[in-house]
């Protein structure tokens, strides 16, 4: 039974983190510099998800330079920079990662 209570509490807190700012922030009271900083949110959050998943392995140590994930990561950056296309970036990264895993 306690696990159900834990899930509900975790769910409520999780939901409140989503609702909190939407409910409480009044845009007309945000300063221009606050709005500018909020424009950086994707660039501030996503790398914290990306970097550990690419540069750390299961034992939380830095991966080696020829790790397939590193190759896939840099191919995706180059293709993303050139193409500005989301699907192409993901596919290019995944295929180069597969090539390194399966062919070498």
């Amino acid at each position, binding site marked *: 039974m306690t*696990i*159900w209570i*834990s*899930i*509900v509490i*975790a*769910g409520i*807190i*999780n939901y409140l*983190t*989503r*609702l*909190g*700012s*939407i*409910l*409480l*922030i009044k*845009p*007309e009271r*945000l300063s221009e*510099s606050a709005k*500018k900083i*909020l424009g*950086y*949110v*994707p*660039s*501030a*959050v*996503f*790398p*914290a*998800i*990306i*970097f*550990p*998943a690419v*540069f*750390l392995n299961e034992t*939380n140590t*830095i991966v080696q330079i020829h790790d*397939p*994930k590193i190759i*896939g*990561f840099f191919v*995706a*950056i180059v293709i*993303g*920079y050139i*193409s*500005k*296309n*989301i*699907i192409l*970036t*993901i596919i290019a*990264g*995944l295929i180069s990662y597969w090539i390194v*895993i399966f062919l070498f």
Partner: protein
Amino acid sequence: MSKKKENLLKGFYDVSPLLLPVVPFGIIFGAIGIELGFGPYITYATSIIIFSGASQIVFFQLLSNGASSIIAITSSSVVSTRHLLYGAVVAQYLSKLSLMWKIFLSYLLTDQAFAVSQEFFKKNSNDEYKHYHLLGAGLTLWIVWQFTTVIGILLGSIVPEELGLSFTIPLTFLALLINYFRKIDHLIVIFLSGLSSILFYEAPLKSYIILSCVISLFIIFLINKFQKKI
């Protein structure tokens, strides 16, 4: 086609390439829940009640490693604090909506939905029905997440581990940043946040995500402030 329906479909269309990692991740999550011994009902309930892949995984992993409920709840909550920042961004565009809309859309505010809808909001800030974009993107993700969790629960790990599909998660988030690759200030934030996440990865309660956000946002704030003075 009405503007509402058009925006709803645009949300669906924009978020669909991001489903590539969501599908295997949902299946893997369902299978992990069963493997760790939580059973089908509890595993599935987290997908409805918590509805956040990263928080759900953290929650299950900690509990199965023998951590107390308090630690599991706190850690999964710390992982979701990034939503406070997402909310602050979209709040600028949703302030005129009714309370019911805000309550409902908040539930659907996930990483991927935020990523595509905030881009749409920026470009269509005068569109009266722009929130239908978030509804379309959010509902799409919700349905796919529920469906794939069930598949994982019923069929187990049908995704071959050798394919390394967990790598599509960082790739997707990387792809979401491609529009910022040409902007030096954004590149600074990306680099600072990435570096911090590696440095603080072992920080208590999985706080490395929110720590990295706060550090990188604070430094870019200082840089902007300093630049203005020159």
